[in-house]
């Protein structure tokens, strides 16, 4: 975290290399957040890029309280919401109309396993179900589930980032998990649960 502060300070003095270090450190998490919210790799790249550029432009005004990662997540989140409000419906329609095309360009990739193409297909199908389930959640619940499950943020960090109360984080997370569990129930292995007595 102290290296963040140093990079932030140098970035504020216009050091592009220092900012580049911040990008390198947080780009994966920023990208995954944007991808999780939009479900599209290219859109996620655009959003993540714009989030970092916006951060660079606003660097001088950044006070440092709460940490750079909370700040860049918030910028990314707001950027994503703006993007989705403008584009999401259109993208969704295109997605539904061009399922074959989307299949070829699917951002949801299983870990390659050349020895078992059948298993790859099944994994790919499962990934699609999961992605669709996440995408079908209301925006507020989707963001909380992504920040928790994919980004691994604590409840306090999520509350700070989204500027909501910790209790609200808990209730949104509870609701989102219940909704996802309903969809994913066919993939949950009940036998394994019973054996774990």
């Amino acid at each position, binding site marked *: 975290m102290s290296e963040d502060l140093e990079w932030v300070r140098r970035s504020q003095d216009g050091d592009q290399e220092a900012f580049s270090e911040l*990008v390198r450190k947080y780009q994966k998490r920023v*990208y995954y957040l944007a991808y999780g919210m939009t479900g599209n790799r290219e859109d996620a790249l655009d959003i993540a*890029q714009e989030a970092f550029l916006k951060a660079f432009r606003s660097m001088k005004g950044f006070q440092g309280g709460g940490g750079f990662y909370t700040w860049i997540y918030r910028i990314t989140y707001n950027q994503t919401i703006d993007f989705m409000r403008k584009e999401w419906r259109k993208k969704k329609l295109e997605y539904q109309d061009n399922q074959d095309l989307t299949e070829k360009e699917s951002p949801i990739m*299983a870990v390659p396993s050349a020895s078992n193409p059948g298993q790859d297909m099944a994994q790919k199908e499962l990934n699609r179900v999961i*992605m669709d389930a996440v995408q079908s959640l209301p925006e507020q619940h989707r963001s909380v589930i992504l920040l928790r499950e994919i980004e691994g943020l604590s409840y306090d960090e999520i509350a700070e980032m989204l500027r909501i109360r910790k209790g609200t984080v*808990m209730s949104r997370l509870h609701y989102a*998990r219940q909704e996802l*569990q309903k969809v994913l129930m066919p993939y949950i*292995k009940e036998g394994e649960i*019973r054996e774990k007595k």
Partner: protein
Amino acid sequence: MKKNRCSKILEWIGPYADGELSPSRSAMIGEHLKDCLSCRTALERLRQTQELIRQGFAFSTVEEKSDLEALHSRVKHGIRLQEAESKEPWWSGDLGSLLFRWARILVPSAVAAALVAGIFFKVYNPPLSVIKTAGKNECIIDSIEGANSTVLLFKTHDSDMTVIWLSVDIEPYKDASNSWIPYSA
């Protein structure tokens, strides 16, 4: 009684799985789970759901690497562009183009207004003797009309400042032989 207890436990099962509970509450739930199959089942379902969500977002290593490399170079490129734009002269940037856009409207408007005013005074030639008796804080406007020129006097009530505007009629005159004589001051 057990059902009530289970419903309370299930409310905390998510924070329990996430390690967000106080040690005492966490220990209490742990104790309950030892003896309660249905709550244990709920916890295991939750953990499998979490695992499935993470799987759903798993990229192949190759794609993740290529996307992140692309992102990094796009950000660097974008920063270089931003920096270059900020070093350009102000008139080539947003402010310059804004002023240019306004100038395209304002300059013709000002010219048109001047023409309309000129035509109005030329055609109607309004009398420029005392137009108005000024009250406090207003201008006193007076005029003296000569053969070739008009002098206007502006005098504010609170100060002694006087502005004189000489309006010259440049139309040439004819002499006794009916020849045009150019105006000379």
